């Protein structure tokens, strides 16, 4: 089939439905949020139309700046840990029999079906001093006495990684299972040890998948607002937690909207930077 550039208005009809859906469910809500971010809050009430930069002005403070940086760093860290764990996991998963692969994929889907609240409280119990994993380590002699690992940064990170790990594997899996095994074998017959072959062939060949997975998990972790509250101290709260706080508990919709717009802009520009770097790297 030859692809011709559309000439008449009727030529656009195949994309009318997707355009309508995207407009209705993404563009319009985002436009509303953007509008509200310039509105004025009514004390003790809701908000009224206005055009003010005050909400953005309030956001430009050291405190919110630090929260934004913390959120981005945490999301990037979650992405990095998920890839570090997920890449070898997925690689070995694709070496298993079909039956075993299905079992593990179903198990991962099972984790996905858990609610964030359950994951949060389960980890807060597991990491607690009274009933947590540290008791187990004491029992087998690795520790002197049980310790509380929650709330804390490690607990937040653990919870988020646990939640994002199934996504990581499910996004990596198709590319890993399609990877031609003879590439690895070729590299071995050419003198590379299995480990060297993995680093010089498998990872570079799958570079695009790895970057795409990093971005997906990054955005996923950026939106987390429950786990940081359940497993972290206030200094571990992300921007998403503050947005929820402003929108739900302080009823300050305009300020919440301004923060949300800022978060979208910040993460979008980060994604664009990574994509641009990727293209530049591929053009070498």
């Amino acid at each position, binding site marked *: 089939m030859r692809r011709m550039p559309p000439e008449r208005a009727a030529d656009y009809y195949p994309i009318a439905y997707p355009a309508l859906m995207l407009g209705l469910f993404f563009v319009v809500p985002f436009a509303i949020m953007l509008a509200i971010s310039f509105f004025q809050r009514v004390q003790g009430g809701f908000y009224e139309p206005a055009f003010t930069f005050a909400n953005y002005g309030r956001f430009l403070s050291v405190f919110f700046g630090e929260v934004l940086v913390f959120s981005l760093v945490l999301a990037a860290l979650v992405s990095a840990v998920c890839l570090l764990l997920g890449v070898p996991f997925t690689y070995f998963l694709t070496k298993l029999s079909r039956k075993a692969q299905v079992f593990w994929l179903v198990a991962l889907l099972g984790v996905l079906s858990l609610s964030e609240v359950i994951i949060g409280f389960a980890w807060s119990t597991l990491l607690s001093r009274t009933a947590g994993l540290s008791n187990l380590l004491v029992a087998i002699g690795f520790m002197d006495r049980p310790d509380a690992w929650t709330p804390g940064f490690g607990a937040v990170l653990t919870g988020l990684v646990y939640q994002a790990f199934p996504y990581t594997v499910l996004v990596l899996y198709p590319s890993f299972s399609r990877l031609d095994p003879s590439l690895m074998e070729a590299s071995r*017959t050419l003198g*590379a040890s299995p480990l060297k072959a993995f680093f*010089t062939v498998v990872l570079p060949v799958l570079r695009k998948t790895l970057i795409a997975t990093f971005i997906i998990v990054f955005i996923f972790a950026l939106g987390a607002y429950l786990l940081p509250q359940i497993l972290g101290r206030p200094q571990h709260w992300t921007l998403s937690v503050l947005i929820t706080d402003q929108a739900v508990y302080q009823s300050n919709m305009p300020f919440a909207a301004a923060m949300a717009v800022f978060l979208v802009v910040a993460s979008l520009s980060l994604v664009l930077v990574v994509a641009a770097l990727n293209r530049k790297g591929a053009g070498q």
Partner: protein
Amino acid sequence: MSGLELNRITKRFGAVAAVDDVSLTVPQGTFVCLLGPSGCGKTTLLRMIAGLEDPTSGEISIDGEPLNDTPAHKRDFGMVFQSLALFPHLSVGENIAYPLRIRGRPSSEQASRVKELLELVHLPGIEKRAVTQLSGGQRQRVAIARALAVSPKLFLLDEPLSALDAKLREAMQVELRQLQQQLGITTIVVTHDQREAMSMSDQIVVMSEGRIQQMARPIDMYRNPANAFVADFLGQANLIDARADGPDALVPGGRIPGLSLACPGSRISVRPEDVVVTTAENGSIRARVGFIRDMGASIEIHLDGEGVRYVAIASPQARPDCRVGDTVGLSIPAEACVVFESGKG
């Protein structure tokens, strides 16, 4: 001794023996084709030689040194895969330099070796090209160049030409053979294409069901197949059941004069080009012409002699005067027949 030696190699996958008690010697500098239908174990055998598969039992050695415990990446063999397995993230030059880079050779040496190898495979100056930009034949040559980069002791190729179209395949067969003779490198090619095996190799090894059926020079194997399987697989063959009748052999439709059989009932093989189509009076076998395939360079005639099919191939100069439906005579010289013991093969 110098060369590759396989001693009673067996490879089992579960209960199935993919390779069953194979012993084989490949002298230094020879070109050997492993030939057989799919599933005969030839690829598994090649993969064991490369170290990608461990034999269940038996020894592999090269120049007298045992190889069983040497992993693939320490064997220093060059291998070309059926899929070619060129690295898509590397350019042509980087692909060929890969084994040198892995071994930590200086980049100046890598560059000069890549240049040399690309000239060897008649593709000079394409170092910078992406492998996805190459044609099938070019990819083939790049894969060969990469496998030869470290001057391997053994050059292994798994169905290397199967992805190419017929014309290019024929040209590459000649080129591959010339390359091998120029370098004097011990080469083992796995193929299911008997023309490929005939045109390239010093020795052909025909395999079936995990076992070696025959190992011989191509022309010896063609003239003197060890059993009916080899006769049928290597080129075309008329496989006919014959009965002894004094000094002659009785076959469906007539007799072959002067062919004396040791057993009363035997199976014989005759190459189609040895079957001469003549008039009904002159031939010793009567048969009806069923089909004529005129290929220009040769004429193939399918005939029916008492329900058994004979195939004759004649040159255009000796074009027999017959049409479909005619009854003609066939004459088969006794010395062109290979006799197998009955029931075997």
